[in-house]
């Protein structure tokens, strides 16, 4: 009798312990997060949130992918992101008739600070081309400090951003895109197919010495339904600060 009880209790204990192990996200080595970080498991509601709703639980962030390839469809298009205005947005919702522009950005990286004076001009060009634009902050590791929503709001106000600037929760969208740094640009056409990725232009520090306006050219091409001539460029930036 006693033996049976011990066995049953042991099995129950084993099952209970097994159920608590939780998920471990596999991570590739293309980004700088520490190995073995646990993934938060939470519900990710699909419906857009009314503004009076309670803050959403953070979505499950998938493993870091390699940089999204030209020709791929935009991933993570339905993940809810909290904008500095207090609105909850999605990439699918920000997309306009002719496409979508996503810039992974932050509040402190010197390359962002050097380039962001050009953000509003790009936003205007995007609007003119029927392309929706959003900047995302994926620095989850700094979410209690330099890259908090409050700091983002202050930064957007100080710089007069004319486009949404939203929190990428748990770097979920950066992971799906394989975004590596700030700033890192991804431009999609009307079918949410990636047609340009990489740099804003060829000169971070000297706007007057820019020779190649890669992103602006790509925006205009997408707006007029033409092929993008230079699809893939590179630029120095600060690595995204994942947890």
């Amino acid at each position, binding site marked *: 009798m006693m033996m049976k009880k011990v066995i049953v209790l042991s099995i129950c204990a084993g099952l209970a312990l097994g159920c608590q192990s939780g998920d471990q996200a596999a991570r590739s*080595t*293309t*980004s*700088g*997060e*520490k*190995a073995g970080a646990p993934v938060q498991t939470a519900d990710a509601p699909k419906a857009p949130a009314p503004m009076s709703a309670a803050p959403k639980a953070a979505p499950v962030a998938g493993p870091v992918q*390699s*940089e999204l390839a030209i020709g791929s469809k935009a991933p993570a298009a339905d993940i809810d992101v909290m904008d500095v205005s207090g609105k909850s947005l999605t990439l699918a919702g920000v997309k306009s008739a002719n496409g979508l522009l996503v810039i992974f950005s932050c509040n402190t*990286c*010197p390359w962002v600070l*050097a380039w962001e004076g050009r953000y509003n001009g790009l936003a205007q060009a995007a609007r003119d081309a029927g392309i929706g634009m959003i900047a995302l902050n994926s620095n989850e590791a700094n979410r209690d400090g330099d890259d908090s929503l409050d700091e983002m709001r202050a930064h957007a106000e100080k710089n007069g951003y004319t486009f949404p600037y939203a929190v990428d929760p748990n770097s979920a969208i950066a992971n799906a895109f394989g975004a*590596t*740094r700030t700033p*890192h640009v991804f431009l999609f056409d009307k079918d949410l197919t990636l047609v340009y990725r*990489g*740099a804003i232009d*060829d*000169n*971070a*520090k000297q706007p007057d010495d820019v020779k190649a306006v890669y992103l602006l050219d790509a925006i205009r091409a997408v707006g007029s339904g033409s092929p993008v001539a230079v699809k893939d*460029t*590179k*630029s*120095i*930036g*600060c*690595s*995204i600060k994942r947890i």
Partner: protein
Amino acid sequence: MARVGLVWALLFALAGCGTPAPDRAVTPRVSPADSELSAAGGLLDITHSEILLLARAQHGKKAALVNVWATWCAPCVAEMPHLVALKNRYPDDLELILVSADFDEQRSAAAAFLRELGAPEGMYFKAENDQEFIGGMPGGWTGALPAVWIFPKSGGDAIFWEGARQPEEIADAAARAIQQEQGR
């Protein structure tokens, strides 16, 4: 002195490895500013071609660890003491090639930071546009800092990563690159 040394290193690299000569003569640019900088223990201008030549010139003698960093890059600054410590641990087996991608205004701050750490020679400054510099380095680098390439002592492809890594991971990778036997 360091400038002359670089020229000799490149000449030996070109002479010794038997590969076709590059399209242009690889002579580091010497400007008065550069000479003053190097005399003052500053950073030498470098391009991606020159980095790869320097790294591959170590084939058979040392492993080479290339690190692109910047004073603004917090993880870069945090890991730099560990890279210097690795060089001190393996003085005859590991060559450190540290390349600052700072803006010009931070160039002397970058040099001062490395000097304070007791960094050896091998302190450089990216002197090429991003597209060519990033695109010319192997391994699929997209431009994030820090970026590290470790060329094995026995030659062959470098291992590469971009983003921060734990000191133990860096040390393990360096140790493997030094001990790697031919054909592994």
